[in-house]
């Protein structure tokens, strides 16, 4: 028998171990190839005018993808090598040299890698159009884009995966080299004997783990987080939460199960014997990989939750900054025409195009003053500082079509999209003392209004909406240079936005955007790319973590095979045994998922300040549900594997 025969035979025999690994590899190659293609395809970039954003996004994604694939492939390889250690020992026992065994393994690995590469690139070529269409849909591009085969992407993919294969082959070489026969024969059985945990110590460490996670959560969302040591604070939170997670896996869960088990006093029952007992036994050895899986899951969940929220909230967030469809503001730098005149011309253009609209001039006053209140957020440093604020008349705003509340006399509503994330309900009310010319007003600021009311002087976003009387009083006293006008346009039919936006472009001075539609288009393009990239990266992460859990469970199932035989002989039915196994898998897959979700919720909560006006609970929930559903597929695959094993046990 030649080495080639041996390779083929052993590959055929190991196929059932390999297929998910092979699938994950193919998936990785395909994704890598597509990302690389999209990154290099000039036609796509030029036609969509997304070049800069897209290229850098995809570049970052390919690096991340390579990192996760490297981790996944080495980890999976280690698991397989460990499982096959007896086989490797046997080859040596019958006279194959270490070099021969290494060659066998490396050829296998290379064949597997090359196979995945070929199929992956083939699949990539087939589905890249689909991916492109999806991307174009996400970024809101409706034109036709042709995608050509990119030799550059091809070369890049081949090189990267060749590197991957070389790295894993070298690890195999190293492992075989330093192994000796007796270890190889014992490797599979090397797992520890069950131990009686020390109740006091494990109780203490178990609670400590929980306490660390809770402290991390609390700290991340407390007011101590946001200060000049933000970076350090973030590291502290990460350290607390990850160490806590490790302790939870290593100690807390085992400790908790011990308590349950002790209460059962030997009457553990079949489901318990197949869930509680092996879980307790393996928790220690699995703590590290479960921590990695949980952390990766949390990262992925936070990433896709955040990205999807960005995408989901694009419209609302753009509206918050640009409340009117179009605005002409005299304060804009380099404006050729005063706003009223430009607005008149724009009106004429709209009329000519037959686009229905409402327009209203809004006046506002730039005032100087200060805020004072007991609960103003420290981070803003508002207390006692002199600041500029723009004063608007609620009546005028309402006339322009904005839904604002008319404040009582002497009261004001604050609009400021730039600081809305730190202003809480408890920050209100506070006092604003403002001066326009000689006239002074002391206003009681009651609440935070949604978004901005109009774009104002660049750099001054603090807008206060007051009642008509107060406004007129201050306006009368204000010097002429403090009085400004912005003309707001709102279209009757929002379907005309695109056309109107094109008409508006000729009036648009510089890069200050007062065009809602253009801003939205821009934002949806960026967010579309982000959700596209994070979505597929997340999928790659998910497939790797899910596969690793599956591989680990496959190993455990094989170690427990004898127990299943015994149980079947004792007269337990497959269904009864499966009940216990399902309970175990609920733990094995459920706990990393639940802890991952908890972590990511707190992570997203602490970055939810990015969203000015959107409640992101729904998009986050949608993203997490999608993740959990795909994740569950791996749990079902695992249970299927166990069922086959239990059925065959007798």
């Amino acid at each position, binding site marked *: 028998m030649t080495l080639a025969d041996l390779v083929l035979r052993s590959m055929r025999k190991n196929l059932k171990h390999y297929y998910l690994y092979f699938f994950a590899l193919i998936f990785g190659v395909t994704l890598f190839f597509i990302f690389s293609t999209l990154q290099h395809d000039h036609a796509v970039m030029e036609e969509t005018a997304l070049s800069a954003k897209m290229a850098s996004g995809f570049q970052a994604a390919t690096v991340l993808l390579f990192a996760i694939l490297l981790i996944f492939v080495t980890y999976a390889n280690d698991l397989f090598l460990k499982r096959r250690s007896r086989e490797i020992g046997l080859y040596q026992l019958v006279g194959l040299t270490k070099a021969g065994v290494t060659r066998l393994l490396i050829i296998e690995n290379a064949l597997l890698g090359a196979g995945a590469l070929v199929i992956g690139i083939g699949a990539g070529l087939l589905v890249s159009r689909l991916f492109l269409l999806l991307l174009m849909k996400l970024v809101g591009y409706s034109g036709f884009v042709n995608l050509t085969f990119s030799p550059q992407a091809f070369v890049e993919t081949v090189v990267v995966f060749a590197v991957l294969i070389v790295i894993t082959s070298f690890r195999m070489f190293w492992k075989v080299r330093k192994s000796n026969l007796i270890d190889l024969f014992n490797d599979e059985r090397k797992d520890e004997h069950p131990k009686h945990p020390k109740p006091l110590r494990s109780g203490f460490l178990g609670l400590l783990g929980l306490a660390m996670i809770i402290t991390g959560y609390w700290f991340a969302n407390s007011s101590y987080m946001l200060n000049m040591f933000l970076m350090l604070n973030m590291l502290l939170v990460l350290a607390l939460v990850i160490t806590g997670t490790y302790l939870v896996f290593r100690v807390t869960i085992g400790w908790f199960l011990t308590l349950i088990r002790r209460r059962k006093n*030997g009457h*553990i029952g079949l489901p318990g014997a197949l869930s509680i007992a092996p879980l307790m036994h393996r928790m220690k050895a699995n703590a590290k990989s479960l921590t990695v899986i949980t952390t990766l899951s949390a990262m992925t969940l936070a990433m896709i939750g955040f990205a999807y929220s960005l995408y989901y909230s694009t419209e609302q967030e753009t509206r918050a900054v640009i409340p009117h469809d179009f605005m002409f503001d005299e304060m804009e730098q380099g404006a050729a025409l005063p706003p009223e005149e430009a607005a008149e011309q724009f009106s004429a253009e709209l009329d000519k195009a037959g686009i229905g609209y409402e327009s209203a001039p809004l006046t506002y006053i730039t005032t100087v003053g200060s805020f004072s209140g007991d609960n103003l957020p420290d981070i803003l440093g508002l207390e006692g500082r002199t600041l500029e604020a723009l004063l608007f008349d609620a009546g005028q705003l309402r006339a322009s079509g904005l839904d604002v509340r008319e404040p009582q006399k002497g009261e004001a509503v604050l609009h400021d999209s730039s600081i809305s994330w730190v202003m809480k309900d408890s920050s209100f009310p506070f006092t604003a003392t403002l001066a326009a010319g000689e006239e002074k007003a002391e206003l009681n600021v009651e609440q935070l209004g949604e978004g901005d009311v109009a774009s104002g002087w660049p750099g001054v976003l603090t807008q206060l909406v007051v009642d008509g009387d107060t406004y007129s009083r201050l306006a009368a006293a204000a010097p002429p240079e403090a009085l400004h006008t912005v003309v707001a346009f709102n279209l009757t039919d929002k379907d005309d936005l695109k056309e109107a936006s094109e008409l508006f472009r000729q009036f648009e001075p510089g890069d200050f955007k007062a065009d809602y539609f253009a801003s939205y288009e821009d934002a949806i393009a960026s967010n579309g790319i982000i959700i596209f990239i994070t979505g597929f990266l997340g999928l790659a992460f998910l497939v790797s973590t899910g596969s690793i859990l599956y591989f680990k469970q496959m190993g455990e199932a094989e170690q427990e095979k004898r127990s299943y035989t015994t149980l079947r002989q004792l*007269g337990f039915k497959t269904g009864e045994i499966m009940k216990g196994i399902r309970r175990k898998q609920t733990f094995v897959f459920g706990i990393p998922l639940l802890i991952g979700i908890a972590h990511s919720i707190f992570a997203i909560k602490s970055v939810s300040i990015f969203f000015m006006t959107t409640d992101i609970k729904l998009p986050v929930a949608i993203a997490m549900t999608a993740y959990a559903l795909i994740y569950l597929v791996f749990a079902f695959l695992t249970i299927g594997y166990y069922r086959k094993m239990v059925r065959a046990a*007798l």
Partner: protein
Amino acid sequence: MVTDTNQIQARTVLQAHQVRKSFGSKLNSTEVLKGINLQVREGEFVGIMGPSGAGKTTLLNVLATIDRPTSGTIMIDGQETSKMKDAQLSTFRRDKLGFIFQDYNLLDTLTVKENILLPASLGGLSKKAAEEQFNDIAGILGIKEHGHKYPHEISGGQKQRTSAARALVNQPSMVFADEPTGALDSKSAAALLGTLEDVNKSRGVTIMMVTHDAVASSYCNRVIFLKDGAMYSELYRGDKQRQAFFQDILNVQAVLGGDRVDAR
């Protein structure tokens, strides 16, 4: 042959009629059991002996419903197990049969007590009754004080006694033991066989034991010899001392063939 008159009065627990078992494909099959007829009465302690390849373990597996016969009928406790479906067989095994294996087959992650109580968990035995059973049997087998230990913390003999206790906890109609002393040193083996003999006498448990060890089978009150898949001969202990019975067994073995010491 000596006939034990006491045994004849007792109820038949196991009845095998023309049991055959072949392995392999239709074209190329080997018949391992060639029509075995066998009757075991309540309270008997039956040993099955024979050289390697005689079909001892196959017979035990077939009788114990772990494997199915190719043809023939088997009745245990009045029920025809050879006609039952898999699910029925499982329930039957759990409720009516007990098993002791050569390498104990304890679940490593369960304590001694948990291992012993495992069959009781689905058997409809109340927690209180199960606890009583455990105390009773573990007391007889001398492993009660090790209840909270894991299998790797106790000796081979104790492990096998745990396995025996697990076999007995459901008060089975019959216990099947496959080379129970195979992995034990002679002292532990003697202790285990002594206990099995005690349990057989005091609780009236019917036991069928496969062994290649003449010493082990001398604890039985009947020994069946198999050769090439067929019954070769049968010895009853009657009122004989164990030593005398041992000699009888050796004599049959000598006739049976040279390989008295069978490699296991």
